[in-house]
């Protein structure tokens, strides 16, 4: 389970948008996963099962009061927009487009933003997103489609 610390913490952060809550959620999720390990369905993928437990913990914390941060760009990324040559991936977007797209993501309804963040920022498959959020695959697809539709206006 060591190997999943990073993805578990980021999943919790995407949902809770607060580092302290994300750490607590990931830690509690790991403890609960350990205790439930005997009930883990053999042959099933382990990562989404673990992330589902962590995501539940993170959602429970969102319901409590506390400061929620928006996703932000790394400072170096913002500064480098007029400086050194960007990576091929980063070259897809100008600095202004990056900021605009991120602002659009941050303004999405929470359910759509979470699906999009897990899918594209953390690199989970659609199936993994569905299992992590404990929703049907079709729900992930429709939330993704609606979110992309809204973003397209900002991006184009």
């Amino acid at each position, binding site marked *: *389970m*060591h190997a999943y*610390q*990073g993805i578990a*913490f*980021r999943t919790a*952060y995407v949902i809770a948008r607060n*580092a302290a809550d*994300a*750490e607590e959620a*990931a*830690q509690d999720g*790991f*403890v609960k996963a*350990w*205790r*439930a*390990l*005997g*009930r*883990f369905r*053999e042959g099933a993928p*382990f990562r989404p099962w673990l992330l589902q437990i962590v995501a539940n913990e993170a959602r429970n914390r969102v319901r409590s009061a506390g400061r929620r941060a928006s*996703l*932000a*760009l*790394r*400072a170096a*990324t913002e500064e480098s927009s007029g400086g050194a040559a960007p*990576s091929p*991936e*980063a070259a*897809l*977007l100008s600095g202004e*487009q*990056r900021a605009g*797209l*991120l602002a659009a*993501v941050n303004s999405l309804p929470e359910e759509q933003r979470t699906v*999009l*963040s897990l899918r*594209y*920022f*953390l*690199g989970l498959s659609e199936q993994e997103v569905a299992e992590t959020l404990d929703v049907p695959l079709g729900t992930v697809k429709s939330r993704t489609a609606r979110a*992309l539709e809204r*973003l*397209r206006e900002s*991006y184009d």
Partner: protein
Amino acid sequence: MTELERALVALGNELEFPPTPDFWPRVGERLQRRRWVRPLVFAVALGALALGVAMAVPPARSAILRFFHLGSATVQQVAKLPPAQQRPLAAGLGPALVREDAEMYAHLGIRLPKGVTPQRFYAQPGLIATYLSYGGKPVLLSELKGDQTVLFKKFASPATSVQPVDLGEFGLWLVGGPHVLMWQFNFGRIHRVETRLAGNVLLWLDKDITYRLEGDLDKSQMLALARQITR
């Protein structure tokens, strides 16, 4: 993937996430504190009750023709085998884990033959297991803590031989005929039994640990492997 989707992936690489804290030590501390004794006490009580009932009722007494109790294992000869199928040796023992994680979950350090470094381990509270290779054949090594019965071995065929062996404090060698392995796990109120057909088995008790080797080896090979584990 559309251009917008590629742009989102690129954006993800540029995002500022807080550094991942190393919360694993804290998880470990919390797991070490966890009270794993209670479910096992429950298992003992359940086992004792079941055995008491079985021995008190004449038809049940005849159904369990004889049994051997060895540490965490009970070997029973029964009139009729419970239904069981061929399954992988580690079936029912949970996902494959690295050694450190498995030992933490089992609350038990595994003893291995010298120079052997398996990559995959399986664990349940009080139980740890791994695959070994002997003469190119896979062998499942399981080690169980204490004397709470979590393992039942049932055989019916007269072709099955159960022989005592000079190993540890007491050992048994089971060979021939179909026999059924039943792991019994208890998690709070959840009671789970995993059943499968088993191969040749060597069971022995040494210093409060029940050891079990299962695989397609003969008695001398199995004993040689066992003596590399507990000497």
